[in-house]
Each structure stands twice: as structure tokens, then as C-alpha cells.
């Protein structure tokens, strides 16, 4: 394969990773606060349906229909997250059980409610190459010849990372997910903050759904985004709950998908399902590999500095209080 061929593959991969960026960063924020929102699969799907339905219904209103689509998708995400938060934080029930049931329920609900919108053309986010930046050699083609949604995802990655590691509130967010009791001792309303970050994460997951239906996988069909919610949960683990690593993992997944579709056209003998499934399987293999004990043992043999940095880069330790109930007296 020549360089001229690789460039378009990469740029497509980066752009098509955008919905996952929103979903994964949303889940990262939620999980860092100690809540696991397992409903991602259902949230993304129901939000995709809602976003498409709203944008389609208001299509005649002009550009605002797209905004309404995204806003309604975000609201769906917030509402589902609210169910998770209320069940987990107020009723103190199992976060996993609530999230899992919601994932199944909302996925089915999207098929039921969206039956009138299946396979019809609808509005999509218009392309918007950024003047000047689009002409930079290599980088311009890679990053700046997409649309506003893609650029927003860059901004989101940057802002999330800055928020996590440079702001007081971000430090407290990380603290809440590790030791809520200690965070409470330092004057934070842990339950309130967890509500906030769960809803915020839900909104981002909702936007991810709309990003599929109104941009990268435009339209709606039965189980339109199947699998992406689950892979988002896996990517958060793979990314070690660090926004930058999570974003890189999303792009890695996007590249795997692009390569799979290229391979599909170059090797037509192999059944297409193999290539559709391959990126998911590869991600899971990578996850198993990086979190295995054997790797840790191998790393220990390296010189101390190399081993420490590598361990920090690839090891993935969940927030200590993830998924646990916190009783605030």
C-alpha cells in the first residue's frame, strides 16, 4: 500500500471515530466519578433514533433542525443517565443491574419507536473544511477537512484532559471516584457531584448517538448502532480512564475498522462478517493483553525508568470506588 492510499484511510478513520470519542469520553467522566453507566449501548441507540427523528421531523425549519436533533439526543442521554443515577445514588441499588437492563430496554425501545423512520433520507451535518488549516500538508488532510462535529470532538478531548489534570474540580472528580469518603471529608457533596457527572456523561453519550444518525452512519435502521455502546465501555477500560488514552484508543479502533473495510474490498473471498467483527475482536484481544499479569512480569524485567513509564502508559487501573455504593451521613 502506498502513502497516497494510507492518508485517506487515516483521515476517514479519524473522522468516523468521532461518535465513539463522544461516547467514550462521556463514559470516562461518569466512571471517574465512581458511577458505571452500563446503559451505553441502549443510550447511544435510542439517542441516535431520537436525534434522527427530531431532525427529520423539523427538516423544513432549516439548519436548526440539526441542532434540535443533537439537543434532543443529548436530552435522551441525560434522562437515561438520570435513571441510572437515581437508582444507583439515591436508591443505592446495583449500578450494573440498572445499566444492563436499560441497555437492553432502550435498544428495543429504539426499534419500536423508530419504526416510521427506517431507511429514509434525512438531514446530515454539512462538510466544513477549515480555511487555511485545511491546506497544511498532511495534517490538513488528516484533521481539518471534515465538519464542525469532528472539530468539536477535538476540542472535547482537549478540554476533558485539561479539566481532569489541571483544574481543582477535575482533581476532585478523580478523588470522588477513588475514595468518596475522603472526598466528603474535604467538603464535597459526593452524591450531588456524582449526579452531575453521570448526567454530563449521559449527555455526551446521547450526542454520540446523534453523531451516528446525523453524520457518520446517516439515517436510521433497526439496531442502527449495534455494538458501539458495548465497544465504548471496553475502550474506556482500554484507555485506562485517561481522556487522552481513551481518545487514542477510539482512533485505534477507527483505524482498525477502516483497514477492515479496505481489506474487505481487496480480499473478496472472505465473508464480509469477518471484517465487520474483526475490529471488535482485536480490541478485546489488545485489552486482554495489556491487562494480563504476564505483561506486568515482563515489564518488571525492563530497566526501572522504562518499566515505570511503560507501565503507567499501558496499565489500566479502574477508579477504586467504581460501581460502589457510598453512604453519605
Amino acid at each position: 500500500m502506498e502513502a497516497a492510499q494510507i492518508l485517506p484511510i487515516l483521515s476517514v478513520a479519524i473522522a468516523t471515530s468521532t461518535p465513539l470519542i463522544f461516547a467514550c469520553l462521556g463514559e470516562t467522566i461518569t466512571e471517574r466519578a465512581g458511577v458505571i453507566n452500563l446503559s451505553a449501548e441502549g443510550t447511544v441507540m435510542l439517542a441516535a433514533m431520537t436525534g434522527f427523528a427530531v431532525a427529520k421531523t423539523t427538516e423544513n425549519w432549516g439548519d436548526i433542525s440539526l441542532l434540535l436533533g443533537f439537543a434532543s439526543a443529548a436530552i435522551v442521554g441525560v434522562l437515561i443517565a438520570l435513571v441510572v443515577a437515581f437508582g444507583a445514588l439515591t436508591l443505592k441499588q446495583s449500578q450494573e443491574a440498572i445499566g444492563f437492563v436499560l441497555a437492553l430496554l432502550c435498544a428495543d425501545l429504539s426499534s419500536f419507536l423508530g419504526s416510521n423512520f427506517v431507511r429514509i433520507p434525512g438531514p446530515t451535518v454539512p462538510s466544513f473544511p477549515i480555511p487555511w488549516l485545511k491546506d497544511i500538508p498532511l495534517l490538513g488532510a488528516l484533521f481539518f477537512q471534515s465538519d464542525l462535529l469532528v472539530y468539536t470532538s477535538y476540542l472535547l478531548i482537549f478540554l476533558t484532559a485539561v479539566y481532569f489534570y489541571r483544574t481543582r474540580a477535575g482533581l476532585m472528580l478523580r478523588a470522588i471516584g477513588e475514595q468518596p469518603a475522603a472526598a466528603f471529608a474535604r467538603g464535597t457533596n459526593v452524591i450531588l457531584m456524582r449526579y452531575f457527572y453521570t448526567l454530563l456523561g449521559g449527555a455526551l453519550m446521547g450526542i454520540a448517538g446523534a453523531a451516528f444518525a446525523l453524520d457518520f452512519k446517516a439515517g436510521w435502521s433497526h439496531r442502527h448502532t449495534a455494538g458501539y455502546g458495548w465497544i465504548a465501555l471496553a475502550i474506556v477500560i482500554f484507555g485506562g480512564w485517561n481522556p487522552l488514552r481513551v481518545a487514542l484508543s477510539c482512533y485505534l479502533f477507527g483505524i482498525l475498522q477502516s483497514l477492515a473495510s479496505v481489506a474487505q474490498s481487496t480480499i473478496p473471498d472472505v465473508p464480509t462478517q469477518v471484517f465487520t467483527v474483526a475490529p471488535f475482536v482485536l480490541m478485546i484481544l489488545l485489552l486482554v493483553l495489556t491487562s494480563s499479569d504476564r505483561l506486568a512480569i515482563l515489564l518488571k524485567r525492563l530497566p526501572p525508568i522504562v518499566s515505570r513509564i511503560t507501565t503507567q502508559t499501558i496499565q489500566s487501573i479502574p477508579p477504586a470506588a467504581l460501581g460502589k455504593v457510598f453512604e453519605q451521613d
Partner: protein
Amino acid sequence: MKIELLNISKRFGSVQANDDVSLTVQAGSIHGLLGENGAGKSTLVKVLSGFISRDAGAVLLDGFPIEIKTPADAIRAGVGMLHQDPLDFPPLSVLNNFMVGKLGGIFINPRSASRDFKRLATEFNFQLDVNELVSNLTVGERQQLEILRLLSLGVKTLILDEPTTGISASQKVALFDAMKHLAAQGKSVIFVSHKLEDVEALCDEVTVMRQGKAAGHLPIPCPDEKLIALMFGRELALPLKPNTCRTTPALELRDVTIATDRLTLRLGNLTVCQGEVIGLAGLEGSGQQLLLLLCAGLLPASTGSLTINGEDMTLKPYKEFLQAGIGYSPADRLKDGLIRGLSIHEHVALRHVSRGWFVDWQETLQRTLQAIALFNIRGKPQTLVERLSGGNQQRTQLALLPVPLNLLLMEHPTRGLDIESVLWVWQQLIARCESGTAILFMSSDLDEIMQYSDRVLVFSGGEVSELIDVADLTVERLGQTIGGRFSSQLSAVHP
């Protein structure tokens, strides 16, 4: 800052944790709060620090009544509390821990925080690396970090809840120096403890609590008997350690080394007789636990052989160690010893394997009731183990050890227990020695080692001493030996 707690009451369910308790702490003084486990000390200080809301009573700071509803209120009022289990964030760095919860602008300022931290650390002579992860610190260092953090928030009253549990002797010295330094600055310190000697070494005044009430206020110094009488409402006698050693060896190690990725421990030869008590002294993590795990059959030796009552047990599976009469009682009772979520009754049922497929609950209930009566456990058969107090958990753990045993291995047999429970535990252990059980126990309490051991092994910096007869030792010498002046001290003992 002068603190007045007036007529504080607090009830949890059916338990009256605090019953009309009043307490005055003068500015610039160190005030001890002494009492056995469950006397209501922690409840009282948690009311003051905003972790628990009181049912009745008032809090006055410098004479003015104040409403403290949350820990944040307490900090604003200048009251900070150091908890028994460090309330910090192990995966974060020392500096990040220092900054969490500090007020200020939107962005954190690591550079100025680091400056503040280093200035305070120097003032109190604490050696902490700002970039180290808290998960790599000892309990004592985590306390130091927490103290510095509270002080940086402008705390004028510092509450310490059982701070001397689980820290080394030198860290205790550093802690006490820091407290005295604070008192000299005019700050007040409330020191919660069940250890007489700590209260006597540090405090200016003491309030003794018993069963949720303030039993009395005394100036320090004051005779032990008087404090003990106030704590328990009667006098307690130390159990005498009779000589129970026999001549038959219970445990023999030959040329044993244990290697883990942290530490290589050369134990060499070691013979322990039946009925003998061996104290394992040393800083936490110097290898005492490795020796216990080795004898329990939970850790293989890298080289050498292990014989128990004449039977070669080297590299045998754990099951055979159990059959050989080895009992192991871990320090972390709820993690390694007992099973969270199971009742005392269920623990007994697990311990005594019934024949066939079904559990004979009637029979095990009888056993459970016997154990509860015999071991004086304050709980019912259906009480979940995590609901028991620390002392009663330890009693349950002891009740579950089989009888008879050839070798009993104990990590911190009395950590976190009040004096009455400590004496009771040791009475049980001594009774076991009289029936020929050899005991190996590790403890960070040097007095306990001196009081109950026949011979002592000192662990320091990956080295292990010969067995030292306790008659050749004093607490001071033992402390110095642990602290590192190893070979010189030992050669002084055994020239």
C-alpha cells in the same frame, strides 16, 4: 482555640453512643480522650468534626456557639480530624492529595502547593516526596501527609483518632514531637486513644470515657491504676506469663531463605520448642509476615527445610499444614481472616465441616452459642462479622481456631483492641501454650513483645537476628535494634 463540648448525646439505633458528654479543651494544650473500644470516643470527636450529627448538646469554639454540620463546616471553623483509617487517595500523588479539596481558582497550582507543602514538611521535620504515590507510603507517612494538609487549611484544633495504631516507633516519636510543636504554637490537640502509655507520654490532661459517658477528667501525670479504674470501672491485673516451654521442638527451620520480589530474607536455622512464645519484632514489612506465611504453608521457601513436630513439611500443600495442626490468624481480620457478609453462625458452620451434603444448622448453632459464651463475643449467632467491633472480631477469629494446635501464628494479635480485650486475648493464648502449643506472633507494640515473649526475633533491613532471650532485652534496646543499629546492638547482646 478553646473547645467546649456541652452535654453531647448521640444514639445509633439501640446504642447510646454518647450520653450527655461534656469536655473542655484549653487552647495550646493536648487533651487525651481515653477509653476502651466502643466507649464512644470516636463518636464524640466525629460530632466535633462534622462527620456525625448530634442528637443534643452544643459546641462552643472560643466561647461562641457554632453549628458544625459537615466536615467542610468544621474545617472552616478551624477543626480538622485525622481518621483512624487514613482518608486519602492512594492512586494519587502526595502533592495531588495535598491539593484535593483546597479552595482557590479554577486551575490547580502545583508549584505553589508544592512550595507550601515543603515549607510545612520542613517545619515538622517530616520527610515526604511530593511526587510519590500515596499507595507507596506507610500508614505513618500518610498520617504525616494528612496532618500537613489539615494545617495548610488553617486548622487550629487537630483531632487524632487512634493515630499510634500501625505506625513505627520512630514515626510515633515524630508524631508526638509534631503534636507538642503544635501545642506550643497555641493550637489545641485532641488525642483519642485506648493506649495508656501514649496518653501519658503526650497529653496534658485526659478525659476518660466509659460506655458513652465521660467517666472523669484528670491532669497528667496520674497513676495508671486510677486511669484503668476509670476506664473499666474496676481494676485489671496483667496476666503473668508462666514458663510453659518444653524441650521437644515444635518447629525447626534449616537454612531457610524466602525470596519475594520486594525482599530476600535469610532465616537460617531456627528451633522453637513446644509451649514457647516467640515475638517477631521489626518495622512493618521487614519480613515478619513472610516467616508467618512460610510456617502457615502459604508461602514456599526458596531454599531450606521446614519441620513441624518432627514431620518434614517442606513444600507440602496447605491442606497438610492444616492437618499438622497449624493455626494462622491474620492481622486484616475482615480481609484475610473472616468473611464479610457471613454471620458468626455461618463461620462456625464453615469451620466444622458437616458430613454429607447438608449443613446441620441445629448442631452448629449449639457450637456457635458455646463459642460466643466461651469467648465472650458481644454478638448474636446471626450477627454479620463486619458488624462486630474490632475486639469482638478478634475474639471470633480466635474462637474459630482449631483445638488443639501444634503451632499458632498470629499477626498483631491485639492490634486496635482495648486493654481489657488485650488481657483476655493473652489469657487465651497463654492457656494454649500451657497445653503445648508454640506461638509465633508479630507485633509493632514493643511492650507486648517484651511482656509475653519467651524469646524474640528482630527483623531489620532484610536481616533477621538470632533468637534473643527476652531477659537480655529492654524495650529501649529492642527499639534501637529495630531502628537499624542492628549488628552492633546484637553483638552487645551476644558478644
